[in-house]
């Protein structure tokens, strides 16, 4: 009897382990298939010319497969959106965790969650039909579909990530630290700035990196709002074509397993590597500076 129980026990343990490995397997499969479909493009262009080539004319004869302008566009929208989302996200997190009464924070927190839940296509649509004409009129620019508009929309997509992860980090700062600071005569603000924030810095950094990772990989917003010109932007009101937008809009037209098709998969590899690095760094910070009681501060 006991034997049968032990067998069930061991079987379940192994079964659960196998299922838990599914995420790793999935991650590897994604890499394998991306590379399998993307690598063939490097028979046509060298890696260097692909990444640093300035011209992306995949359908002309002969075609140009240089994605530098797409990479620059992706980095530009991500950085510009980070300039908006980092302060807004962190300030909101501080407000929820440290200042707001319990009642107020119980209203604001779900609001931030709902903001995160808005489908990206809806935000893209909003940017297209409302924000674009508005920008066009206010700034007197030829098109409202541009780098700035896309960054603004992306910012509101990454704020929830930055805000809720930062809030978790601030929450995990032990109360005794706050009490010690207040007891020494510091004001509430001084306590937040000089004690709570430094203590939660690693968590907030992780939040910022993951928020930016979300922005660089976001597709629908940049597809609908960024303007779509594969040029290196000079002003923030220039239309751009970030990597996800290029993949999403061209894949339907690219003939199956043509050079264009492989080039889009290779763009996917570059995008994947960017977000992979973001995530590894975030994971590393979170793990290395993991808060274990008060002793590690």
């Amino acid at each position, binding site marked *: 009897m006991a034997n049968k129980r032990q067998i069930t026990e061991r079987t379940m343990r192994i079964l659960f382990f196998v299922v*838990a490995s599914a995420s790793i397997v999935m991650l590897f499969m*994604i890499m394998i298939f991306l590379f399998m479909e993307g690598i063939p493009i490097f028979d046509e262009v060298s890696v260097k010319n692909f990444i640093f080539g300035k011209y992306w004319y995949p359908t002309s004869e002969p075609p140009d497969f240089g994605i530098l302008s797409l990479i620059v566009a992706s980095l530009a929208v991500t950085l510009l959106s980070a300039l908006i989302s980092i302060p807004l996200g962190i300030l909101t997190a501080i*407000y929820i965790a440290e200042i707001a009464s319990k009642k107020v924070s*119980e209203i604001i927190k779900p609001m931030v969650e709902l903001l995160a839940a808005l489908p990206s296509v809806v935000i893209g649509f909003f940017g297209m039909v409302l924000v674009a004409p508005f920008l066009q009129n206010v700034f007197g620019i030829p098109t409202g579909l541009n780098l700035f508009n896309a960054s603004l929309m992306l910012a509101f997509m990454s704020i929830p990530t930055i805000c809720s992860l930062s809030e978790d980090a601030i929450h995990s700062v032990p109360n005794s630290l706050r009490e010690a600071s207040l007891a020494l005569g510091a004001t509430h603000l001084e306590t937040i700035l000089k004690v709570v924030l430094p203590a939660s810095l690693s968590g907030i950094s992780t939040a910022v990196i993951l928020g930016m990772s979300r922005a660089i990989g976001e597709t629908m917003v940049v597809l609908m709002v960024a303007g779509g010109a594969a040029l290196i932007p000079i002003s923030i009101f220039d239309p751009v074509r970030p990597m*996800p937008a290029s993949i999403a809009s061209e894949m339907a037209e690219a003939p199956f397993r043509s050079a264009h098709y492989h080039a889009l998969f290779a763009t996917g590899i570059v995008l994947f590597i960017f977000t992979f690095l973001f995530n590894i760094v975030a*994971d590393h910070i979170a793990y290395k500076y993991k808060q274990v009681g008060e002793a590690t501060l």
Partner: protein
Amino acid sequence: MSVSLPSLQRRRNFLQKIVFNVFRLAALINGLALFIIVYFMVANGWRAINWTFLTQPPMDSMTKGGILPCIVGTLCLSIGAILIAMPIGVASAIYLNEYARPGPLIRVIRIGINNLAGIPSIVFGLFGLAFFVVWLKMGVSIIAGALTLGAMSLPVIIGSTEEALRAVPDTYREASLGLGATKWQTIYRVVLPAALPGILTGTILGISRAAGETAPIMFTAAVFFTPSLPVSIFDEVMALPYHIYVLATAGTEIEATRHLQYGTALVLIFLVLGMNLIAIIYRFRLRKRMQ
């Protein structure tokens, strides 16, 4: 000291007041953004919504009629995705939270899950195209789209299930083990029932996330137009998010179909935010009861 103490104190308090208002403003901006987007969609979209719109397929080359095939398609895709992701996700979470001991193995699995969560949706779309549609020869179909969306929802389900499992007090487990139950019996009979409400909340959130995604289904499941409703999982479908995108960017009569675009967006928002609201309220009451 050149400044007297009381005036220094006043200055510090004044500064604090100003800075706290800046924090408050930041929080307000977020709330405002949500409000503006939802208000704008409701104000422009509600007139488009009527019985015909919800129960008819598109007509007159998409300029009239309704969005029934899109609603059906989105429901098929998102529910299919969760049926795939939920068993795998819950089992993964059980392993991570109940069986695994700290060590390099668990760390590798966690890194894998975190990275899976960080992969851009369009990369999932590429993977779905290369693996499910082409390699497994599923074609552009509900099953290919649901599998792609399922892979994408996996980290969400694992995360929320783990949270639910962590919320079950250890005393439950100890009591069950103390009575002579095995680990599996404890998990199956004690831990899972206690964690079930939390797991269901996570599942609702997973469905709503899957319903709103566009990029993963662009190459794997969704099409511009199908004349009939899907009858098998190997049929291609229309979907709400893709329908909005197509009407707003690629239609021949973008301005003429504007009201349909708003209407579709409103239905999608209603669906997604509705599910989220249910999950949030449910979780709120759950946490209250726990305390």
